[in-house]
């Protein structure tokens, strides 16, 4: 089974993000990290590949930088990576991202595509569904559990009130929530091997995609402004009587 996993390098979420004042794009440092939500998809892919003698290929669009995030993903055990990076892709919306990833995945060949439900930094939350449509395959979305038996892929799909059990046959796409599996940590051996694993770098033009960036976005940013933040109120160290302050505030707000 050939498994494609969408993976994204993002600026470290522990550091404050900056917007370029002119382009309004998030400033992307040279050193980026693997989006934490992608670790779950990678883990699912590795488990499926281990059971079915499959291969796991990462697909990533965005500024390649030092490739630190990609190496982190390879260190978990993925076999190789395809990174699509060119200047023309800056400012691309979700649809262009999906077109680029779908084209790269199709070119490589796949039986199953796995992605997180949304990225941590952009959280548009629709790129996987767009990829599924472009690849013309069913999408098992929002998986909180999965199994693969007898050629059939089955998931528990998270719904607003509970979950549905849904099933399909590959080729297909699956999106996974971060409750689906416990991602493995890279081993020392994995980290050393990751340095030697193949990383193919290609451009959108090489995939036959000409219209990229804000040209293809179908939308234009007209204003960017800071949202007034809440003011922090009283902060006290609990000396054993902290609960009394809560009671007092609940009384003031007439909750009790």
């Amino acid at each position, binding site marked *: 089974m050939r498994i494609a996993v969408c993976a994204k390098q993002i600026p470290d979420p522990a550091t404050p*993000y900056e*917007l370029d004042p002119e382009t309004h794009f*998030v400033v992307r440092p040279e050193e980026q990290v693997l989006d934490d939500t992608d670790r779950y998809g990678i883990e699912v892919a590795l488990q499926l590949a281990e059971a079915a003698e499959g291969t796991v290929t990462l697909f990533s669009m965005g500024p390649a930088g030092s490739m630190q995030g990609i190496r982190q993903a390879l260190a978990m055990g993925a076999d190789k990576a395809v990174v699509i990076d060119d200047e023309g892709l800056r400012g691309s*919306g*979700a*649809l262009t991202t999906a077109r680029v990833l779908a084209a790269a995945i199709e070119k490589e060949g796949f039986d199953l595509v796995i992605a997180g439900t*949304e990225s*941590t930094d*952009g*959280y548009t*939350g*629709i*790129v996987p*569904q*767009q*990829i*599924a*449509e472009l690849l013309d*395959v*069913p*999408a*098992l*979305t929002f998986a909180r559990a999965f199994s693969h038996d007898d050629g059939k892929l*089955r998931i528990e799909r998270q*719904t*607003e*009130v*509970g979950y*549905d*059990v*849904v*099933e399909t046959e590959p080729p*297909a796409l699956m999106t996974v*929530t*971060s*409750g689906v599996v416990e991602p493995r940590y890279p081993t020392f051996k994995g980290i050393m091997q990751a340095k030697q694993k193949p990383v193919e770098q290609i451009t959108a033009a090489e995939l036959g995609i000409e219209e990229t960036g804000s040209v293809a976005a*179908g*939308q234009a*940013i*007209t204003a*960017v*402004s*800071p949202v007034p*933040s*809440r003011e*922090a*109120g*009283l*902060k*006290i*160290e*609990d000396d*054993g009587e*902290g*609960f009394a302050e*809560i*009671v007092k*505030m609940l009384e003031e*707000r007439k909750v*009790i």
Partner: protein
Amino acid sequence: MAIWVFSSEVEGAPSPTSLELLTKARSLDTDVAAVYLGTSIEEAATVLGAHGAATVYHLSPAGALPAAGAAGALAELASAESPRAILFGMGPDDRDVAGRFSARTGTAVVANAIDIRLDGDTLIASNEILGGTVRVDTEVADRPGIVIARPKAFTAEPGDGAAATVTPVAMEDGRGTVLESHVEQSEGPDLTKADVVVSGGRGLGGADKFELIDKVAGLLGGAVGATRAVVDSGWVPYSHQIGQTGKTVKPSVYIAAGISGAMQHVVGMKDSGTIIAINKDPEAPIFGIADLGIVGDVNTVLPKLIEALEAR
């Protein structure tokens, strides 16, 4: 130029967000329709009509994952009727259909919208990025403009509209089979409507400690919320999750216990009236937005709070 609102069925009725969006849509345009994906169409037509839809296009899922079929039918319909915009919520079916529709028709999407307006014929959608710290206004040139809005961005108010006229729309069979559907009942008041919400995070230390949250919520007549980390750890079902990938709440009082205040969580509760936070890390970001912050161990503070509330 009509505005359409996608509405998926949640527990036999139109999703709450779709009613919020219809209320907004009818303030923007006199020509408003709903696209309903579900089976209880008669009841839905009444509710959707009252909220502003003159017509409801009905897509009926038949034991299959409906998104591919629904997106295809919607694309044909939109091509024939040329609506100015189609508004979606953030439910799983909303996102599946919006994504597929966008790819199929080559139209861009603005996601996480908190405001939508028409300036003449120009459609502008606003969203907040970077954890709700920066607001971005986007002009949507594509037709139809696809906007995915956050829950509770608008308030649902029924008007005096009659039941919507139902137009059945044929759709191809979905791809993927739905074998079973499960409802995970949550006890207590409805999280999205409760006046008081008490939420627990990983700072509680373990699933068994979550009963402290249940107790405080019970004593205050409030609802129980949780962070993504807690839900992912299996302590409580997803229906309790608050944040970017969960529910959005705006209660009068929000108590965050053992919650650090990750962006993911904050976007779902930052518009609460009063925020009370308890966390042992004095640097936790939650204190930056809390009206009252107690730096201390939740497992010490909550039992004392419970005792004090019980004594009243």
